[in-house]
């Protein structure tokens, strides 16, 4: 039973962590673009 739980836990954990890391990176880039577009032109 412990082997079975380990296999599913590793798979689920890795997929969720990878997805969360991608979402976080995407959110950072989007925030950066938003902040750039709100910044007043300097020239």
């Amino acid at each position, binding site marked *: *039973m412990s*082997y*079975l739980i*380990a*296999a*599913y836990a*590793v*798979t689920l954990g*890795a*997929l969720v962590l*990878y*997805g969360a890391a*991608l*979402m976080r*990176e*995407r959110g950072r*880039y*989007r925030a*950066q*673009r938003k902040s*750039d577009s709100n910044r007043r*032109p*300097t*020239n």
Partner: protein
Amino acid sequence: MTQNTNSSSHPTASLHEGLSPLEERVGRWRVFVGVGLALVTIVYAWAVVQAPVDSSQGIIQKILYVHPPLAYGAYLGFVITAIGGFLYLWRGREDFDRLAVSGAEVGVLFCTLMLITGPIWARGTWGRWWSWDPRLTVTLLLWFVYLAYLLLRSFAGPGPRTARFAAVYSMVGLVLIPLNYYVIEIFDNRSMHPDNLEKGSLGDGMGWPFLMGNLALGFAFVYLLLLRWDVEARRLFERRREAEQDVDQ
């Protein structure tokens, strides 16, 4: 000074946040894929719990509902990498190259998980974590080949030269997929690894959870691929923008 003063120097600078029209269009599907993934995952969990316990292996046999679907996801990732590479060489569009990188990364993740769940299953049934049998050895080789692809791209940095080389490399590496699949038959069933699944080879009540496992991990694969593709476009866009700002300063 205005932004994107060097926009003519690269084709993506004028695009919305670095995404090509194809990437923007495909990115919209991700929401629907995410909803599908959530729904299918609930049914998948229920199906695995309800699945009958195998009379010879016991409950550990339920790893069947996650291990082969991970393998199919890995194959799919590497096929997408080769297709993306081929389209990049043919059409010269960077978004196809970004698709190739994304396919390789998600494929390597699935292949890694396959290489983790397999030994867990082997330990419970064969009594040992690893055996140098043909299927396992070729799978490890496949993993190394696409891990090397990612390392190559990471060390060489972005650029058309790297993209061209990576495209050819990914297409050559594809040869390992049919070899990996048919290696058990090539070695005349002398492998410890069970035979490839065929129609009717699963026990009663095992087909449904197996199908749900393939659907759930298929949805997870597509969701992560689309997300990774989106991030790759934004990542390159930000890198280029920063480089332009450095030049301007």
